[in-house]
């Protein structure tokens, strides 16, 4: 008889896969069979275990011992020493950071210093391909609560309004309020925006790969609240593993009647379908995304009418981000007051960040809204790599803003960042050490915008091209101080006149770079810049 005494979690995500996670897993299973432990030790594939860039990561429970950079050759030693004899292999052991533990979040007991994991509660803990594990870990409990306690759609909506949840896609618009804009209509749609293209952002990917059932549950609840019986998840075409995992999860949910007609005999109906993107950053804009689902060029529509009035096929539509929707189940399950105990009064809850660049431990973290940038970088991210000095950070992706050392103590939430003309955006934090050139980075950002502009409206099409041309001069040391003013002028005009956020955004990185790192730019345009011209990205702008 099988009597499992240990579980070995192996983190499977794009990063560990390329470090050979699959080979390690197979070797592990073989070794367990050889040693006669197959009935006692269970190997479980799970999503990202948190640390990235540390190769294959294993965690053994109940011992809570973590190993990093595991190779196939290490497997016999781990099995013999640890799983057979009970002596952890010190050589490979890494401290299991508090955030990697299973954080039990109960309505009463608040989590103290470690990461309060609301959205990522199950990511890296469960096997994302197993519905049983998802349910055991608490997925679909909120749905059952709504059914058993006979909540009306209005009850769900009001709880979300009361929670103060704000959209996690970037703009921070109150989610509950967005839902109230939906007029009564026979046919409405709910769309999950998983077109995560903001450079430096991969939080939605890891949520999709780590706990897809959480998103499905969030969508059922949101669909119930607004009266939509059909939902779509629009995922980037490049995210092959996310598409695969979510497809499997949807299939499982249909099988157990967690999706479909008359869900669990409750009278609630919700159908869910995946739509695959084809490589266009602008499709992250909600009306462009709707166009793309309809099978057209992904060009943004003129607003108004907003999607709430005329969305997909002209029907009232709500578009919410993956992280936003994954916040709904815990809010319903634990209540709005519980949710408000995290974060700040105007920005309740937690936020998932991707922290990368010259940082000791790049990866995914979830912290309360209002945590300072300093804490995120130095407490949760382990500080700057190789003992170097902090120079600045780009917060919010390409459509975000640069911050420098004097702003390290800024509280990270929608309202506090506004005071610094910065945005939380997608939650990407690119950390730069003292050797990073902001000029080169800004050039890269502007060539990104030039490539991704959809070409529909003139200010953005011409503006992004003009910005890149000016920046090309500057980066080569051929610019003049006047060019710096020109950058500001052009991006300012674009902000006023562009159709969608793509053209309205370049002002953020341009202005903040020039405000906080002016000297670096002045040095480049002084006429004395002599460094060999960098291999800049003419290539990038030619890409098809």
């Amino acid at each position, binding site marked *: 008889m099988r009597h499992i005494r240990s579980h070995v979690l192996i983190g499977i995500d*794009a*990063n560990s*896969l*390329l470090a050979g996670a699959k080979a390690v897993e197979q070797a592990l299973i073989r070794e367990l069979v050889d040693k006669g432990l197959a009935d006692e030790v269970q190997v479980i594939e799970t999503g990202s275990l948190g640390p*990235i*860039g540390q190769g294959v990561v294993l965690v053994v429970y109940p011992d809570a011992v973590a190993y990093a950079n595991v190779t196939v050759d290490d497997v016999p030693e781990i099995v013999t020493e640890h799983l057979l004899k009970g002596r952890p292999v010190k050589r490979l052991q890494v401290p299991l950071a508090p955030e990697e533990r299973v954080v039990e979040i109960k309505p009463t007991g608040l989590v103290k210093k470690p990461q309060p994991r609301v959205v990522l509660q199950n990511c890296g803990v469960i096997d994302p391909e197993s519905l049983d594990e998802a349910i055991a870990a608490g997925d679909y409990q909120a749905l059952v609560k709504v059914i058993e306690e006979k909540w009306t759609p209005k009850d769900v909506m009001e709880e979300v309004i009361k929670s103060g949840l704000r959209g996690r896609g970037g703009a921070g618009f109150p989610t509950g309020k967005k839902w109230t804009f939906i007029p009564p209509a026979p046919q409405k749609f709910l769309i999950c925006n998983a077109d*995560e*293209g*903001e*450079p*430096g*952002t*991969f939080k939605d*990917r890891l949520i999709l790969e780590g706990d897809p059932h959480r998103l499905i549950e969030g969508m059922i609840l949101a669909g119930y609240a607004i009266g939509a019986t059909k939902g779509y998840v629009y995922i*980037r*075409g*490049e995210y*092959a593993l996310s598409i695969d995992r979510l497809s499997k999860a949807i299939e499982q949910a249909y099988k157990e009647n967690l999706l479909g007609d008359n869900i669990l005999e409750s009278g609630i109906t919700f159908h869910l379908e995946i*739509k*695959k*993107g*084809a*490589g*266009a*950053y602008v499709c992250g804009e909600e009306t462009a995304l709707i166009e*793309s689902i*309809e*099978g*057209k*060029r*992904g*060009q943004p529509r003129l607003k108004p009418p907003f999607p709430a009035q005329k969305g997909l096929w002209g029907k009232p539509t709500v578009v919410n981000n993956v992280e936003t929707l994954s916040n709904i189940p815990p809010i319903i399950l634990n209540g709005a007051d519980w949710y408000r105990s995290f974060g700040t009064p105007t920005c309740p809850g937690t936020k998932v960040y*991707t922290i*990368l*660049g*010259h940082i000791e431990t*790049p*990866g995914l973290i979830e912290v309360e809204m209002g945590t300072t940038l300093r804490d995120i970088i130095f407490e949760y991210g382990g500080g700057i790599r190789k003992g170097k000095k902090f120079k600045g950070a*780009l917060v919010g992706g*390409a459509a975000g803003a640069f911050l420098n050392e004097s702003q390290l103590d800024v509280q990270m939430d929608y309202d506090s960042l506004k005071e610094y003309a910065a945005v939380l955006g997608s939650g*990407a934090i*690119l950390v730069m050490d003292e050797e*990073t050139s902001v000029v*080169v*980075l800004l050039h*890269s*950002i502007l*060539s*990104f915008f030039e*490539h*991704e502009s*959809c070409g529909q409206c003139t200010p953005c099409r011409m503006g992004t091209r003009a910005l890149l041309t000016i920046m090309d001069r500057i980066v080569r040391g051929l610019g003049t101080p006047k060019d710096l003013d020109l950058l500001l002028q052009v991006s300012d005009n674009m902000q006023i006149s562009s159709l969608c956020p793509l053209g309205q955004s370049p002002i953020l990185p341009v202005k903040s770079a020039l405000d906080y790192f002016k000297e670096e730019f002045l040095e480049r345009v002084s006429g004395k810049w002599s460094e060999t011209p*960098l*291999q800049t*990205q003419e*290539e*990038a702008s*030619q*890409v*098809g």
Partner: protein
Amino acid sequence: MHPQTDQHSKVLKILQKYPPFREKMHEYLGIIEKYPPSREHMLDMLHDIQEYEPKHYLPREALLAVAEYLNIPLAEVASTVSFYSMFSLEPRGKHIIRICVSPPCQAMGGSSVLVALKDALNIDVGSTTSDGLFTLETTSCLGVCGVAPAMMIDNDVYGNLTEEKIQRIIEEIRRRDAAH
């Protein structure tokens, strides 16, 4: 009547209309026939055809097949295809290399990796090696910034790239293909 039958009779009608392209179009229609003929499925159809084509592109006959199947002008299909960077109208190599040129990869040394890649393949961005093995493209963020700089070859992600690693990866693929 079963909708599948409906769709199939439509396919047969289209084929009678274009005798010169018949053979190719037959293949493509066979792929897209499983979708109902409505525009919302167009991107899926194009993805499927491109995956099926050994040269990973969308030939004219493919666009024609989709246009006829959806009852829309050919220009509508072509303009949609040209909008999305994952679709190609030109034949491509056996392996498609997509190297990330987003700011996070740039900050971590992406430029020198791109130069190394161009040297190793002896081609520019947007072209295919003379042996038809590789096409080099750039891409925006692949969402694996934890291992920047990164690239994708077909569906595999390669991270923490260095100039030496690029050499090794390309040589490895060349060797693997030669062995087949």
